[in-house]
């Protein structure tokens, strides 16, 4: 096949295709205007529409409508339930805080009471100890006074005896009474 022939062939085919297009555009061959088929199409269309209408209006649409309504209801209910739970949680939290505060107050009270009790016991014990100490001190002072008195007596006794002995040693006659008064006077002067 020569190039010329091929080109000729191609041009023919393009013309053919264009012819098809022209035929398509031309109203002469339009199957849409073949009125013989109209009753058939209209009949089957009406059948299809009636069947469809019943399928949709009797089964499909009520079903979808109820599913959508149910879903809306479920969502609304769930949201309401969530709100309730939330407020319940808030209430529980408040109750928890209140319980905590009450417990703290109760603990503080117990501590105060215990402190007061201990203080009272302590005061009693201190008072008791103080009186005891005072009693002991008084007793000791009495003892010390006695000891001091007896010591002073012993000193005057010893002084008299010593004086008598000394006088006897120096062969001086002296009566006991004057010796005693002289020693007592001397002791007083010494003490003073």
């Amino acid at each position, binding site marked *: 096949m020569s190039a010329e022939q*091929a*080109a000729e*062939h*191609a041009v023919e*085919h*393009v013309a*053919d*295709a264009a012819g*098809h*297009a022209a*035929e*398509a*555009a031309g109203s002469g*061959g*339009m*199957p*849409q*205007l*073949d009125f*013989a*088929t*109209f*009753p*058939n*199409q*209209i*009949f*089957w*269309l*009406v*059948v*299809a*529409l009636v*069947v*469809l*209408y019943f*399928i*949709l*209006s009797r*089964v*499909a*649409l009520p*079903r*979808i*409508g*109820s*599913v*959508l309504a*149910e*879903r809306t209801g*479920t969502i609304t209910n769930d949201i309401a339930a969530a709100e309730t739970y939330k407020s319940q949680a808030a209430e529980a939290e408040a109750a928890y805080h209140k319980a905590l505060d009450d417990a703290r107050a109760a603990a503080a009270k117990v501590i105060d009471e215990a402190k007061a009790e201990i203080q009272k016991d302590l005061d009693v014990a201190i008072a008791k100890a103080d009186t005891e100490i005072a009693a002991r001190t008084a007793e000791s002072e009495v003892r010390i006074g006695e000891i001091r008195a007896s010591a002073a007596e012993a000193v005057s006794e010893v002084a008299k005896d010593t004086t008598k002995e000394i006088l006897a040693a120096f062969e001086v006659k002296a009566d006991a009474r004057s010796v005693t008064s002289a020693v007592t006077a001397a002791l007083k002067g010494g003490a003073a």
Partner: protein
Amino acid sequence: MDQFIVRPLFGDGDVGVFTITNATLWMALSVLGIALLFIVGTRGRAIVPTRVQSVAELAYGFIHKMVEDVAGKDGLKFFPYIFTLFLFIVFSNFLGLLPKAFTPTSHIAVTAVLAVLVFLTVTIVGFVKNGAGFLSLFWVSSAPLALRPVLALIEVISYFVRPVSHSIRLAGNMMAGHAVIKVFAAFAPLVLISTIGIAVTPLSILAITAMYGLEILVAFIQAYVFTILTCVYLKDALHPHH
């Protein structure tokens, strides 16, 4: 144009009223697809939906909201009807995009019936709900008195043109897209015959791909437009006062 021909599915006879044709088959497939999605897909009635169920719910919510927003609360009575129209059109459009498929919505016979159904429904509802007050739809009370008869004439004409534009828009869009793909497809095998095809074939295939993407968009948009216009017309019937 082969793809648009209505022919008997079994045998070669004429197309009678009750003959099972390719149109019958593809309408039935649409109904089957819708039943699968909306009955089998939602049979779990799950609170947490499966994937198929959530697609069904999405479609339900989409049209339900559209009807409520455009036609108002009292338009919701017509929701099953409008949903039926939307699903039939959207399934027909998308199934028609499968190779070798037949597209019922590319036929004026089908879309005209859909549009006339809407037209009749809207007109009957308008008169039943408002009585003669429905005619105030055509009497623009906000315009100067002298202009009102002229406007009324225009309004009446536009009212009766509605089903025409409503049906031709859908059929025309579906047919045009399929035809354009077909034209590009005719150029695609050129590489088998001629060296010019080395340039033309990849371009055609690219164009087919691009058109196909566009057609996917159009398949949805045309179903959407048909449905929302139905809602707008319904709003006129329920609340005819401007």
